[in-house]
């Protein structure tokens, strides 16, 4: 430790020569063994073994690097807020910069709603350490005890009234040894954390500054598009590219793997030329259609080889002895992620290095994939992170980045690869299609004594979440899954698996409550009480937090008290957070209309209230929109929806009023990018059942009979 500090001191001296002063702290805040150390100039930080950092310049400007890919989860604002809180910085003097890929970062990715939970303590420690050093520097200068000094809004003050700005203190502070036992603030003293702070990139966004991958440009770069097989299960046989090559602006047409790439001088020229390709494909694997999948769902439900995911008690006996058995099946289609910004990436493969730039949720993995493909050491590859025009899980895959790199290596030129919306929608890594069968055994008093769930998924892996509620609350339980392997590629889609499982499960629990003659909220609370008092096997969720959101949602929505609307309840635990929702449906003629959704989230400590509301509201709109309108179907291996004209997304006139509440329990943050989405489909389906008496057995709801009556 000491030697690290000594080394760092030398580095710092270098920095003073370079920048003329200031405090620069490097914090390994993505590593559990956080060790704050003074590092040199920001630009050198990555080279000398430190991850990310904050710096305070002599003019008082605090610069904080944001390492994670920003795709709308607002991490560029919430991370610095946590640092600034402990630092007692003046927020108006905080500058945030997007960091590029640095191989010292421990978790430089966006996925799993995990960034804030992962970094919470480390970010706070970073801010608190810098603050302690600034106070120490001031106390030393004034020859007063540190205990008589306080820090606030970018100044250290002494009780005598003396005051020095962070900028004035930065250089002196940087010469002190770094304390390792700083005290973090009591949450009652939080000023920034829990307040609403606007997105630090707002100004650039509203003025059209180049922020996104598609905006990235390099002198001399060529534009490229790739024609891929339109059907899953087909491969490239032959290409006639003569007509395409003859088009103006086209530099070349090259084939690799199953790809035919058109490379040219502008996007439009490439787009036009690509249409002139004459390509033959041949069969490589199964050619599947949605009709085939629908048949498979039914046959595999009964005859498929199931993998047991969780088993408790004696399920057969419970069902044999049941006073009542309830069964329900639910099905969800494939979905496209369809972020607004189509897939794209820039790659320049040079003789001795590779330059990559673009939107990816997993930059480190992109670099690894490119290194393996080109057989180039990772340290020869740089990756500049651009802002992502949405991700929703699609950009966890780096197929587009790898394609760009391969094409650049073939062309020996800087390449900007662009997918059209059609390429994206027909090109895979979809949310898998799944069908679920639920069965519940009730005793004479309406207690759920047995529970069975089978998921049949197409490339869904484990389509269940076997340790989620209601596991732990039912003595006899069997959860298993059957998988069909398909050439249609699937991947993580915002709130993977739970984005459709939650709808199915919460709809089914509503069915069971009705069959048991119980109020849906009471029924869930009874189950949770059972999980608390006499758990059936391990309970892997926090029963009290789940009870907390259920009760608060019931209270905030006046559950069961407003007879003029039909309410539906849903609650779900995902990504370590708990969200309960109540949907309200009114009949307009014979058509159910979702008027309002009340949401209660327990994500632990809220960092940015405005941003948190945004995540909850966006998650609900996303969940509602896809449950209502979206589907991707297949014919002969090809996606039948190719763009927004046939793949329907929710629009402004279709949004209900949304009310958001947060549980204030002081628990450390547990994530919010995804957890608000899963409960929505179930809450809406249950409210529509209440209004119409019809169960919504499949998505998208808009295709079901209940929405087909024309007024």
């Amino acid at each position, binding site marked *: 430790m000491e030697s690290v500090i000594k080394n760092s001191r030398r580095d710092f001296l270098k920095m003073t020569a370079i920048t003329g002063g200031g405090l620069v702290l490097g914090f390994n805040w993505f590593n559990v063994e956080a060790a704050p150390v003074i590092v040199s100039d920001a630009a050198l930080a990555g080279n000398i073994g430190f991850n990310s950092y904050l710096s305070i310049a002599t003019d008082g400007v605090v610069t904080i690097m944001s390492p994670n890919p920003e*795709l*709308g*989860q*607002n991490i560029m604002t919430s991370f610095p807020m946590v640092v600034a809180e402990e630092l007692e910085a003046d927020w108006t003097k905080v500058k945030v910069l997007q960091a590029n890929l640095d191989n010292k970062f421990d978790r430089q990715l966006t996925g799993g709603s995990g960034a804030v939970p992962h970094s919470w303590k480390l970010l706070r420690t970073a801010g608190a350490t810098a603050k302690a050093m600034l106070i120490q520097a001031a106390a030393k200068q004034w020859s007063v005890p540190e205990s008589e000094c306080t820090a606030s809004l970018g100044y250290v003050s002494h009780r005598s009234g003396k005051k020095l700005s962070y900028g004035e203190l930065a250089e002196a502070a940087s010469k002190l040894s770094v304390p390792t036992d700083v005290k973090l603030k009591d949450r009652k003293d939080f000023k920034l954390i829990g307040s*609403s702070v*606007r*997105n630090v*990139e*707002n*100004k650039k*966004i*509203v*003025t*059209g*500054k*180049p*922020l*996104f991958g*598609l*905006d990235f*440009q390099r002198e001399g770069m060529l*534009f490229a598009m790739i024609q891929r097989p339109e059907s899953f299960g087909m491969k490239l046989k032959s290409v006639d590219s003569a007509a395409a090559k003859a088009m*103006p602006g086209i530099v070349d047409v090259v084939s690799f793997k199953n790809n035919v790439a058109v490379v040219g001088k*502008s*996007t*439009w*020229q490439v787009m*036009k030329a690509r249409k002139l390709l004459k390509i033959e494909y041949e069969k490589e694997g199964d050619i599947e259609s949605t009709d085939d999948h629908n048949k498979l769902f039914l046959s595999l439900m009964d005859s498929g080889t199931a993998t047991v995911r969780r088993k408790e008690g004696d399920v057969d006996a419970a069902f044999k002895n049941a006073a009542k058995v309830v069964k329900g099946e639910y099905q969800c289609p494939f979905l496209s992620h369809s*972020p*607004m*910004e*189509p897939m794209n990436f820039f790659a320049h493969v040079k003789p001795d290095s590779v330059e990559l730039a673009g939107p990816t949720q997993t930059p480190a993995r992109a670099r690894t994939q490119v290194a393996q493909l080109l057989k180039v050491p990772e340290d020869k590859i740089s990756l500049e992170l651009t*802002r*992502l*025009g*949405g*991700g*929703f899980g699609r950009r966890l895959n780096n197929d587009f980045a790898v394609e760009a790199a391969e094409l650049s290596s073939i062309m020996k030129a800087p390449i900007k690869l*662009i997918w059209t*919306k059609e390429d994206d929608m027909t090109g895979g890594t979809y949310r898998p299609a799944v069908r679920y069968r639920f069965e519940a055994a009730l005793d004479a008093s309406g207690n759920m004594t047995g529970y069975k769930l089978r998921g049949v998924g197409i490339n869904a892996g484990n389509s269940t979440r076997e340790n989620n509620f209601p596991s732990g609350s039912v003595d006899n339980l069997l959860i298993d899954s059957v998988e069909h392997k398909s050439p249609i590629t699937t991947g993580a889609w915002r709130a993977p698996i739970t984005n459709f499982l939650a709808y199915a499960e919460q709809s089914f629990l509503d069915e069971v409550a009705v069959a048991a003659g119980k109020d849906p909220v009471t029924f869930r609370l009874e189950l949770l009480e059972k999980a608390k008092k006499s758990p059936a096997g391990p309970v892997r969720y926090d029963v009290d937090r789940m009870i907390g959101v259920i009760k608060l949602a019931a209270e905030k929505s006046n559950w069961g008290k407003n007879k003029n609307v039909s309410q539906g309840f849903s609650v779900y635990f995902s990504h370590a957070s708990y969200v309960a929702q109540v949907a309200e449906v009114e009949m307009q003629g014979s058509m159910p209309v979702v008027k309002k959704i009340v949401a209660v989230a327990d994500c632990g400590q809220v960092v940015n209230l*405005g*941003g948190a509301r*945004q995540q909850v*509201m*966006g*998650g*609900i*709109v*996303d969940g509602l*929109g896809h449950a209502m309108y979206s589907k991707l179907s297949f014919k002969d291996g090809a996606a039948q929806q190719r*763009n*927004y*004209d046939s793949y329907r*997304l*929710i*629009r*402004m*006139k279709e*949004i209900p009023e*949304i009310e958001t509440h947060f549980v204030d329990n002081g628990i450390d943050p547990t994530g919010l990018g995804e957890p608000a989405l899963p409960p929505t489909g179930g809450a809406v389906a249950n409210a529509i059942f209440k209004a119409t008496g019809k169960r919504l057995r499949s998505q998208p709801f808009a295709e079901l009979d209940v929405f087909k009556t024309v007024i």
Partner: protein
Amino acid sequence: MATYKLQVNGKTLQADVEPDTPLLWVLRDHLGLVGTKYGCGIAQCGACTVHVNGGATRSCVYPVSAVGNSQVITIEGLSEKGDHPLQLAWDEVDVAQCGYCQAGQIMTAAALLKKTPKPSDEDIANTMHGNICRCGAYHRIREAVKLASTKA
């Protein structure tokens, strides 16, 4: 190829492109104005919205040959200092999530406010219905348009 002299954001800019090139790609690839976004390419999402003679226009399907002497305004030219009432409202309401669609949203709203300075909720919903926000920020978009209309 043909040479087009375009009136963009109050300046005359020249591009040598084919006549069927959509204005979107002329702006992005040839004039360096990348604030106008490519979303769907078929006039369904509104990310590419610009003003042509004051009217909200989907630049992804608007060929450069049709522009003529029309005045084209892009997000970069909506205001000199980024202080159009809508831009300020977008910040105040903190609308953006990923932000990709927002230039198109703002340009659509700006055309509405020019024609209808005090739009009703229905006017706003009817106009903005054509613009997709995949992050689902519709509530705040609506609120920001409303706010801007009270300040303009």
